[in-house]
């Protein structure tokens, strides 16, 4: 049984589906595939095959052309339409003397086909092709993931870069217009960044900037977004925050920065304070990217002008529903009295 030559390890326990209604063929395939190092899932009809095919980890399938329930080519077509995130390599099996249409099978979405009884040397070679294709896709997805990360993050601080944070703001504007939930935006500037650069060099400044971003990340919700807008200017997007909550978060960050010890090459630097210009969608008459950035920028300018280390919130309207909410709250309070 354990002949050295037949034991060729392919990869460790690569999952593979055998969809075949004839138990003899199915058992025979199972045994061979296990010897080659695959972990085999069996289905004796189309419905069960479909259930297994949809599993994300399953990447190779041998499908019998004629099966009770859903037939092989139909399964291929269905899977291709389902837009599974990972590619699944599909091999159709067909009896040699049955009239079958190769073109129909391939057009339905099969990658390959084999005639039964299966020649195992051939099957092994074809499965190696399958693995090669899957390996290529995996590598491509890895590269894509890496490129996406490089294209959206700021290399120095690992915050989102300007393009990415702008896209998140646009998405948030759309969401807010759809479901009416407000959001806040903070434009943040480090007050004495120039002095830090002068005193500790640009590398020192870089270190402080990184520490500021880390401090924010550790103290914000996981779905808040921190982005680097320019040199020492950061933007924070606060989903589902109204103007009050936005103000609370901003003053909390001021406090955190004030109390934090920033280090350059292991030594504590002079204190770092922040100026924050804040804006919230529920106090803007026009919620668009331009008005948000412009309003936050003006607020930031005022915060600096009034002596730094503070938050200024700007808005140009208070929507009736906010006023109403406040009134309701007041009324409840008074009636309780």
């Amino acid at each position, binding site marked *: *049984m354990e002949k050295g030559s*037949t034991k060729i390890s392919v990869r460790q326990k690569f999952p593979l589906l055998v969809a075949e*209604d*004839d*138990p*003899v*063929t199915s*058992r*025979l395939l199972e*045994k*061979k595939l296990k*010897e080659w190092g695959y972990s085999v899932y069996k289905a004796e009809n189309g419905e069960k095959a479909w259930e297994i095919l949809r599993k994300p980890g399953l990447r190779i399938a041998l499908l019998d052309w*004629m099966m*009770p329930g859903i037939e092989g080519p139909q399964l291929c077509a269905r899977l291709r339409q389902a837009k599974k995130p990972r590619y699944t390599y599909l091999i159709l099996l067909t*009896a*040699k*003397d*049955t009239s079958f249409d190769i073109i129909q099978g391939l057009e339905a979405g099969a990658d390959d086909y084999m005639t*039964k*009884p299966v020649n*195992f040397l051939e099957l092994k070679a074809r499965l190696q092709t399958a693995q090669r294709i899957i390996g290529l896709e995996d590598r491509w997805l890895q590269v894509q993931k890496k490129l996406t990360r490089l294209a959206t993050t700021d290399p120095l601080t690992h915050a989102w870069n300007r393009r990415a944070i702008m896209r998140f703001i646009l998405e948030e504007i759309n969401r807010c217009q759809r479901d009416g939930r407000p959001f806040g935006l903070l434009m943040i500037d480090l007050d004495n960044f120039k002095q830090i650069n002068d005193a500790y060099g640009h590398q020192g400044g870089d270190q402080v900037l990184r520490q500021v971003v880390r401090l924010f990340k550790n103290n914000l919700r996981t779905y808040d977004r921190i982005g680097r807008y320019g040199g020492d200017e950061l933007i924070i997007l606060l989903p589902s925050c109204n103007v009050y909550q936005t103000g609370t978060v901003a003053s909390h960050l001021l406090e955190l920065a004030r109390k934090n010890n920033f280090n350059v090459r292991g030594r504590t630097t002079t204190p770092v304070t922040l100026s924050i210009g804040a804006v919230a969608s529920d106090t803007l008459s026009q919620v668009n990217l331009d008005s948000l950035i412009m309003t936050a920028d003006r607020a930031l300018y005022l915060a600096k002008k009034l002596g730094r280390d503070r938050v200024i919130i700007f808005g140009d309207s208070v929507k009736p529903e906010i006023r109403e909410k406040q009134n309701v709250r007041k009324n409840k309070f008074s009636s309780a009295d």
Partner: protein
Amino acid sequence: MSEKTNSLPPINKQEALERIGGEEEFLKELLDIYRTEFEKRCQELEKAIDEKNYQVIQESGHSLKGASANLSLPALREAAYEMETAGKSQDLEAAKKTLKRLKLEFERLEDFLNQSK
């Protein structure tokens, strides 16, 4: 039908063994699976012939054909193929005749296997 019955060997054991990797034990296991499957299919076919369900006649024939080919059972394979064809062409008489032949060929296989034990 009788002239065809004896023209093909019940099993090409050498070929079957080569295909499955040379293990006698495994061939026995597969033949056991085949036996169970064959009995199930025969019952199915009897019912299908009673009910004139040509779809099932064709499918059962097709499935048995595949199983027989895998184990290098040429006579059974041919009979199963005829069953598939009978289903396809909706020929009830042929289906009845072929079912008898299938059973006969199966007995021949059993005899052969018992002799060679």
